[in-house]
């Protein structure tokens, strides 16, 4: 297990190095001069000497390669630089706002897991009957409505028309509900559908029939025999969904004024605050990569067949 984890981690090194190169080169895709931006020449003109002072202050006079090497060596030492705009350290800024995003993504994840499992079980056990059809229709609709539209509609419906849930920010548990549903609904439905297919597959397995033959209770059969096997392929998908949730958070956070890293990143992109955007992209990619790795490990932990090195292919589950 440990050996495998180490190997996987080592294999990530070149990938993350590549990620850093691409992230850094983003900066060169952009037109414009960051020096002018700091000056926030918004209503007033920056004096030329202020611009020069800024350029040397942030080391913008070096060539791209030198800048990259300098940047990378700083990043490796855990220093993502300082914001052009506010002068805060980027990692402090990210860590400051990360809890909000993780809360949102984590909440959406939990919502997704709970809803997709209940949808999956209901759909599979009531196959072809009303609840299954209802869930299917809901799935088709939910995956067709973009998150930004869903968010606006929920905001309007629950916040303004029904006046039951707060529309902004991160105050009190109630404010949590709408963003989480907005972020998690589509994924819940998709995974619910996937789970349904897997469960239907599993129910046909001999061991489930055998469990019924033993006269076990429905609950025991679902938890001990069906779900345990059906969840395995789903775990990989759940892990993958983290990327989707972190990306979707950008949109949801900007609609709900959720003070997380996504909103920060969007603002930083709009004001060309390179260190912040670079730091954000890099950080999120590492978070995503690590969560994928964690899921991979969890999978190995959950599935005894893989754990014991039987040569079982986790990808072969018809997902």
């Amino acid at each position, binding site marked *: 297990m440990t050996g495998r984890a180490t190997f996987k981690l080592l294999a990530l090194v070149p990938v993350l190095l590549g990620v850093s190169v691409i992230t850094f080169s983003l900066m060169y895709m952009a037109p414009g001069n960051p020096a002018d931006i700091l000056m926030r020449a918004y209503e007033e003109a920056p004096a030329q000497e202020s611009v020069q002072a800024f350029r040397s202050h942030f080391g913008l006079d070096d060539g791209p390669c030198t800048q990259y090497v300098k940047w990378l060596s700083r990043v490796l030492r855990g220093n993502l630089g300082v914001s052009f705009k506010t002068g805060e350290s980027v990692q402090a800024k990210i860590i400051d706002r990360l809890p909000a995003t993780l809360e949102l993504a984590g909440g959406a994840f939990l919502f997704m897991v709970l809803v997709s499992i209940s949808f999956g079980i209901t759909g599979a056990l009531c196959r072809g009957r009303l609840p299954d059809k209802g869930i299917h229709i809901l799935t088709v609709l939910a995956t067709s409505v973009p998150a930004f539209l869903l968010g606006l509609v929920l905001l309007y419906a629950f916040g303004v028309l029904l006046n039951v849930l707060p529309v902004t920010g991160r105050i009190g548990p109630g404010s949590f509900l709408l963003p989480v549903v907005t972020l998690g609904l589509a994924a819940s439905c998709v995974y619910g559908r996937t789970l349904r297919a897997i469960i239907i597959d599993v129910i046909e397995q001999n061991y489930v029939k055998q469990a019924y033959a033993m006269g076990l209770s429905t609950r*025991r059969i679902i938890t001990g025999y069906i779900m345990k096997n059906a969840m395995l392929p789903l775990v990989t998908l759940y892990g993958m969904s983290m990327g989707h949730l972190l990306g979707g958070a950008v949109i949801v956070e900007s609609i709900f004024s959720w003070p997380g890293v996504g909103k920060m990143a969007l603002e930083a992109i709009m004001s060309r605050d390179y260190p912040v955007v670079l730091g954000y992209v890099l950080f999120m990619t590492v978070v995503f990569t690590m969560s994928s790795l964690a899921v991979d490990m969890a999978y190995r932990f959950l599935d005894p067949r893989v754990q014991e090195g039987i040569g079982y292919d986790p990808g072969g589950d018809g997902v």
Partner: protein
Amino acid sequence: MTTILEARSLSVHYQTPVGAVKALDHASFSLGEGEILGMVGHSGSGKTTAACVIGGFLEKNGRVENGEVLFRGENILFLPWRRRRRILGKGIFLIMQNSASALNPTRRVIAHVADACSSGEAIMGRKAVSKACALLERVGIGKDKQTLFPFQLSGGTKQRVLIAMALALRPAVLIADEPTAGLDAINQATVLDLFGTLKEESVASVILITHDLRVLTAIADRIAVMYRGALVETSNTADIISKPVHRHTQELVNAMKTIHGS
């Protein structure tokens, strides 16, 4: 001897893309209390279908065309699934064909038996586990193997796990579908021994399904011979071996004698 299970004129058809296939054709048989009934026949003769119909696991494309199955005098064939399930386990326990896939691959051996122990009884948690532990020891699975996963066990051991489950459930009727298939001679002997034990302790009345007549000669009280979905002959074991009536039975007995030279 009272009859605990009786099938009357049972007909089952499978819908297949090439038309309906008759799997059972007016088959009738009965199982007495404490008796071991052997069912024998070549592949496709309808043995497994019979087991599935009684156990309630008929394939989706199968349909009962005719007949009834009486369990303790009640026709269980057309009971709603919810009521049917109450009979499963403690009433009728079906050990599926192909023991390799009959155990949950992600569940430890002992958990299966513990589940069986707690099925329909008030034993829960640790009590069930310790009972399961004892039962597994009885079927010859030591503590070292009890926490393994099914795929780590040999076919014979898996079959023994299933028998341990039967011991735990103490069903009124045990139907074992090909319990000795794919086992080597030593394992076959052990498994059959365990079925003998079941009978001796009058744990259950057993229907033992196999294509191997020889397996039945040792432990079955009566033998039913199936041929193309019909029950062609039912008689005491000794009678079947010594004076088979139906042509197919004669073939089976002859084949057995030719191979094993008994």
